[in-house]
């Protein structure tokens, strides 16, 4: 049974459709990455799943039960880590953790004990009694994450938990999330960092303009572009129309085209050297060709026509 099942979730703000029929599932012990640029609908989706926002349509099932039927029960199963630092800077890390533990329904003693465990797990025991306002960005992010874990949720919703922190702090958080997955926790992880999605997530959903464009494991998504064959050609493509070249459309799929660069993937299973030969025989003076494995960015490019970093 899925820990989380989201079925055709939709939300509009006036004329703007923020989320349009998003469906996904998160299994126990799985990290599902929701990848998309800013404004794609990731946070709106998480807000609806966590009950902060009323969906216009669609249903959320948590551990097989409808969220709408018993929201409090669903909230006991979930832990939500918001994108912003939703912690009290005047209080210490320990006080923040204990407070959110009490709010999650733990007794005073349980909250204290769990806080001690989490401070150790987040390597913050030494600074636990200091006010959060004296923490570094990475330490604040870790406390922000810890505040959602007091009640040992089976399902964790992480909304871009590594935004704005240095690489080392990011690595610490990613390792901690990996440890959570190892305990059987299901995680819905939104991000716009390709590397995080590629390295951390078992399955990835690509979202843009509120629509889930594709989902699957990384190899499944790469397969959409022809497995491991993506060619980057450098030439003067100004005033050229590759689609009009004879036989080109049948053999190659254009991922991206600019005046100086053309990124294509091969259609079908052919030897890369054959593909290379075909590309060099095109009616354009090619200056350089690179063969590379398709990245999530290439998948995103192919799906949306623009780079994720744009």
């Amino acid at each position, binding site marked *: 049974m899925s820990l989380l099942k989201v079925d055709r979730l939709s939300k509009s*703000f006036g004329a703007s459709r923020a989320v349009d029929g998003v469906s996904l599932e998160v299994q126990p012990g799985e990290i599902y990455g929701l990848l998309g640029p800013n404004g794609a609908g990731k946070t*709106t989706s998480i807000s609806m799943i*966590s*009950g902060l926002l009323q969906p216009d349509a669609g249903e959320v099932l948590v551990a097989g039960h409808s969220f709408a039927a018993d*929201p409090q029960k669903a909230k006991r199963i979930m832990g*939500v880590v*918001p994108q912003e*630092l939703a912690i*009290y800077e*005047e209080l210490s890390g320990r006080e923040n953790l204990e407070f959110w533990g009490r709010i999650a329904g733990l007794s005073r003693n349980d909250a204290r004990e769990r806080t001690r465990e989490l401070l150790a797990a987040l390597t913050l025991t030494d600074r636990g009694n200091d006010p959060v306002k004296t923490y570094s960005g990475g330490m604040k992010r870790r406390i922000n994450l810890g505040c959602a874990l007091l009640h040992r949720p089976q399902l964790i919703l992480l909304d871009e938990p590594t935004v704005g922190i240095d690489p080392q702090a990011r690595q610490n958080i990613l390792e901690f999330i990996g440890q959570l997955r190892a305990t059987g926790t299901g995680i819905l992880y939104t991000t716009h960092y390709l590397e995080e999605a590629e390295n951390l997530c078992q399955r990835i959903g690509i979202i843009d303009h509120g629509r889930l464009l594709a989902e699957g494991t990384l190899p499944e998504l790469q397969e959409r572009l022809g497995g491991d064959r993506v060619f980057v050609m450098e030439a003067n493509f100004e005033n050229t129309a590759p689609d009009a070249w004879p036989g080109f459309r049948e053999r190659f799929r254009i991922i991206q085209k600019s005046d100086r660069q053309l990124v294509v993937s091969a259609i079908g299973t052919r030897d890369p050297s054959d593909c290379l030969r075909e590309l060099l025989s095109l009616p354009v003076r090619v200056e350089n060709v690179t063969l590379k494995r398709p990245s999530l960015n290439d998948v995103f490019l192919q799906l949306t026509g623009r780079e994720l970093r744009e």
Partner: protein
Amino acid sequence: MIGILLAKDLRRARRNPLPWMINLLVPLVMTALIGMVFGGHADSGSLGRIHFAVVDEDQSFLSKFLRGMGGQEQGSKYLDPVFMSRAEALREINANHLSAVLIIPTNFTSHYLQASAPVSLELIKNPAESIHPAVLEELLGALVTGLNGISRNFNSEFPVWQAALTNEVDYDQLATLVKHTGEKLKAAKTYLNPPLVVYETEAAATNQVAAGSTGTGTNSMAGIFGYLLVGLAAMFLLFIAGNAMADLHRELSLRTFPRYQTLQTATLPFLLAKIIYVMVVVLVCAAIMLGGGGLVFQIHWEHPLALMALTMGYAGFIATWFAVLVALLPDERRAAVLTNLSGMGLGLLGGCAFPPQQLPGFIRHYVMPWLPSHWFAETARNLQGGETTLAWTGVVLQLAAVSVGLAGVAIWLFRRRFNSGLRA
């Protein structure tokens, strides 16, 4: 749950004491300022005796009579005149040792009695003081009105009186004069006491009610301070509550209120804890203002328990009112304007800042009765004025009912806002 939330707010307040200290400082400064302006340190708890100089350049029997008035038993309770030359008096007032200087000019008496030329008394007020010189000016106005009245009615007899008092006294002539004047006064008595025609202003009528029919014997000046202090406290508590409720804005912008909602379905405990927190701030400030003010002015609060209950009801109203404003305008900067305007509106239109009788009739009749700030201030003033009925209990219940209603509105608004994607 409410206890956990409230403990968190109090702990935060302890860690970041500046806003809290500012909240406490406002009533302290306000009370001290009023104390300085009104000179509320007098033993009687009243204005204190007005220390002023009389410069008698006339040196006549009338000027001696006027000089003597200040030293009478009644007058000496409030007036502390000293007699000196003009130069000395001006030196003293410049040194800020006097509230005012009253100058009785040369030939004042002769000109008055002969009606040969307009006469005037000269009053020099100390610009560094506001209340004492103003009171003295009012008293002088009453004296001038009296002198005018005497002049208009007894003008024909003035020369005889002057002759009788300034020259060698002819006792036969004086006896005739007294008899004649007595007959005139006797004839006027039926008109003067009681007067045949009277008029009554609404303000006077209301003040009479406020003063109460029981005649508690409360010092009238202390009554004025009580009246002023209650109104000013009602006004300032509005601003203090507005500042304290800004913490709810911060809970929204910090995203801690939405985070709470990811763990708990009910909005009520979070909002209720914040309302209680604001009420605590307001009540502490009210204790400083009313209690501290009472000590400074030596006001004896006639019904402390009733005043306490009223203040609690009022604190509930203003806390929930500002919670509604936060729900209406979650953006703190935009809401600050509305918070200040609504605080001023409730204070001014509710008749807190000055006597309600001074407000235009439309506001008095159609706006003020609907404002809880007016219910509080007016009921507290009436209590202090000696009202002994239990009308205040009704007002407390009214305030409590409005608070509950406003809390309900705030919860409903927040739910709506969250459902539609609230961003502070």
